[in-house]
């Protein structure tokens, strides 16, 4: 059986936290450039110019793209034929987060307890870690730091089957209109449809790890993504101060659900749609 030492996991997670914070993925950068070409608002153009310039500075100088370097979401696919050795797997990931956020001069934005005693943990741990056991002997890690300007505007609606496609569109648009200019648009919108309330939310997060240029493989969902994008871009929200580039993409993921339900979750991501991906 293949073995992987936890030290390797920690080192890689640390590097990935820094990469994600500094380098905007190319698909998102190109999406911003396309938005700049088509944007109709003069103020919107100025805002997009600043955002594009910001991405270039962050990349050239290894600086955080945004000061909110997020709560660290970690998607793990663990091959069932891989043996993790040398320590605790979850601890290894959190050690990597602590190392990356400290060495990389990233902001530590996590409090240990949410309500009564909000004390900063000072190293951005713990991360939000989702582990899936899959065939094979590899470890696949995706780091997706999530800022809370946009996370605070995300939401879930529990629809019923009779609500159908129209109901889904209305539910998404209600969340988008409520969010308006607050989540730092141009947004990237992750939508999770089906499952349970929590599964829908997770699907909406996973949707954001897909390239903005890649549509859902099922034609019906691909069409829904395009129609939702058009609706969002007709709201006037634009790049923060009004305009036509409100969102760069809508990514929809779906899952099996109950005969009585149609959960819909929307995770809004700002233009800082950051992630880093490695297979160990």
């Amino acid at each position, binding site marked *: 059986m293949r073995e992987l030492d936890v030290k390797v996991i920690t080192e890689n997670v640390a590097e990935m936290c820094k990469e994600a914070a500094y380098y905007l993925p190319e698909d998102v950068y190109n999406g911003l450039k396309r938005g700049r070409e088509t944007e109709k608002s003069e103020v919107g153009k100025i805002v997009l110019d600043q955002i594009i310039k910001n991405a270039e500075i962050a990349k050239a100088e290894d600086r955080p793209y945004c000061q909110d370097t997020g709560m660290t979401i970690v998607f793990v696919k663990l091959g069932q034929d891989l043996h993790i050795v040398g320590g605790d797997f979850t601890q290894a990931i959190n050690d990597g987060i602590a190392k990356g956020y400290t060495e990389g001069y990233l902001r530590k934005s996590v409090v240990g307890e949410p309500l009564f005693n909000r004390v900063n943990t000072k190293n951005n741990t713990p991360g939000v870690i989702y582990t899936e056991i899959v065939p094979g002997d590899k470890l696949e890690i995706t780091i997706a730091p999530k800022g809370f300007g946009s996370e605070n505007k995300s939401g879930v609606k529990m629809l019923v089957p009779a609500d159908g496609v129209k109901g889904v569109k209305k539910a998404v648009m209600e969340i988008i209109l409520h969010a*308006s200019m607050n989540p730092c648009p141009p947004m990237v919108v992750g939508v999770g449809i089906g499952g349970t309330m929590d599964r829908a939310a997770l699907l909406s997060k996973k949707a954001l790890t897909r390239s903005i240029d890649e549509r859902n493989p099922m034609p019906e969902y691909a069409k829904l993504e395009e129609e939702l994008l058009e609706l969002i871009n007709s709201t006037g929200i634009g790049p923060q101060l009004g305009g036509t580039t409100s969102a760069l993409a809508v990514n929809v993921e779906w899952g099996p659900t109950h005969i009585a339900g149609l959960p819909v979750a929307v995770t809004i991501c700002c233009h800082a749609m950051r992630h880093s991906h490695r297979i160990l």
Partner: protein
Amino acid sequence: MAESIRITTPFTEEMSRKLKAGDSVLITGTIISARDAAHKAMTEALARGEKLPVDWTNQIVYYLGPTPAKPGDPIGSCGPTTSGRMDAYTPTMLDQGIKGMVGKGSRTPEVVEAMKRNGATYFAAVGGAAALIAKSVKSYTVLAYPELGPEAVAALEVVDFPAIVVIDCEGNNFYEIGQKPYRNFDMSKI
């Protein structure tokens, strides 16, 4: 869009009243950072009848929690945070003499009323443009609540810090004005 208006601190009510929603500005001088925890601490101190650690008369507050500075830099990445989270505390803080606020996103009607009463202006910096904005910051000095880390109250010396007037002291709101021409959305047509 017209050329940017240069403003320098201290930022008086007279200067504030000249600005209109949609104006593009470049701020030079000292602005003071404060966000969630600092606002809570300051309003609690006022409620106890204590003096604030900073004189806010004619100051511009910046809703900010920067990343740590790399060695040799005055500050890390330092874009605006969501202003709305400060709304519950803002009328009290405006009554302390603040004349300008820099952040991002909408404000409550209570804040807008307090702005009109005090002749204060609300500016937006571009949300997420944090590495770019850092270029206009020349120094960062913690003034109070150092235990709050990135949430500490600090003085930032800035040169040509770019911002846009979103809500002027008459209550005109550029978020509404700027969106309107491009809104072609009707929920009932879905």
